[in-house]
């Protein structure tokens, strides 16, 4: 294994965790990381050795995520019962059916750009300028997205705390 692949391998668990947090679906996350790895290897000549490989990989991952989301726009179907009722006739993952009154549920409600920034800082411990580099935005925008996202999280968490909790009835 060459140096680049070895270095990428050290980042893979982090890339995968970030992908899982972005997509909240392991299949999609692994697809995302796989596309990211394939893209990174194809474009390895673009990586400057003096640069930060973590930033480079997360930048590829984030852009790939954006591409995936664009491709996953609602599909247009004819308004016939068979087509509509059979769209994506796939047994759903069970996890979303469960109560998920936690930080991930709250994160799900944030705009994507705020969620992506918060996750890079909180999960990966990235500095604001590294996040700016990954996302291709000014550092001031990173701070404002963090600030707005965290305020929304605070409000969501506060509302959940105030909400009556259901309990199991034996």
């Amino acid at each position, binding site marked *: 294994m060459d140096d680049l692949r070895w270095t990428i391998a050290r980042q893979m668990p982090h890339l*995968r965790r970030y992908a899982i947090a972005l997509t*909240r679906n392991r299949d999609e996350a692994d697809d995302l990381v796989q596309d990211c790895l394939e893209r990174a290897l194809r474009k390895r000549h673009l990586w400057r050795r003096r640069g930060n490989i973590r930033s480079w990989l997360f930048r590829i991952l984030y852009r790939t995520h954006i591409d995936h989301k664009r491709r996953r726009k609602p599909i247009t179907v004819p308004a016939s019962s068979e087509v509509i009722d059979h769209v994506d006739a796939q047994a759903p993952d069970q996890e979303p059916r469960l109560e998920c009154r936690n930080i991930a549920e709250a994160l799900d409600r944030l705009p994507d750009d705020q969620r992506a920034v918060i996750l890079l800082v909180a999960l990966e411990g990235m500095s604001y300028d590294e996040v700016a580099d990954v996302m291709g935005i000014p550092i001031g925008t990173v701070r404002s997205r963090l600030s707005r996202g965290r305020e929304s999280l605070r409000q969501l968490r506060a509302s959940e705390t105030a909400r009556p909790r259901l309990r199991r009835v034996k």
Partner: protein
Amino acid sequence: MSKDTEAIGERDLMAYADGFLDADPARKAAVERHLERDAGAHGHVAEIAAQNEEIRAFYGRALAEPVPARLQAALSGMPAARSRATLRAASVAALTVIAAGGGWIFGQSDGGVGNWTPDRFVTSAALHHGEAEARNAMATGAGIAPMGKPLAWLNQKISLEIAAPDLSVEGFTLVDKEKIGTDSDPTVRLVYRAADDTTLNLFLRPRWEERGDHIARTQANGVTVHYWLDGPLAFALTTDAAGEDADRLAAAVHRSVKRTRLMEQPPATALDSAGSRAMPMTVGSDGLAPLPAGTVAADAPDRQLN
């Protein structure tokens, strides 16, 4: 160490909470002095730290998981398999092409409720779109359950707890709710309105079939209807927001209604065809139904991911 006297601002508080002032002891000490004097700032920093900690704790296990073989293969430059999700997307595309071509090769749905068919639901949503807009103009919001709270007016009709999606992040407020249709063919309409008077109508009706929840977009009676199936409910959304804004709103609602949780058994109308397996549950006046033994409680330990 010289004393840092520059005023402490939001940037300092965020950097402190995120642990980025460790390399600047003077500034860190200045922030800590500020926090001792300012309870609001102290609470703000504590909230950020708590959020970070929860996020790390929630996704902590993902870091320790073994990397799947297909990702190892991709790194090695070997051909790697794709996930079910990718294959699913391909099958949906193929399905659409087949249907659009005028043919249908699959059997009749066996998951409908009563004599309901999805196209009737979508068409109904489109027909009620204009009507909902007219009602919206008169709605005052009085008596509307707060967003995010369980809806209780379908008691004994639908054995579900369903929370009205909170779309405040999108700038929408719930202003009206109504049951439309007959008891044997019930649909709930939620009407949201934004500050700029953009209206969003969300239609829900029971179904009983475990299917996927991909958002579809279709046209009925000249109205664009976003439509998806989620567990025992079908959703249709109409809005006067256009194009990508409508798509984005549909995605936001789709995420929000993931809070739906199955409380007991399928709706009675669905049971008619499936045999009498259970009685519908009564939903309490506070909108909260008792959980039957064996169901997952809201305060059960969180499952991490799918």
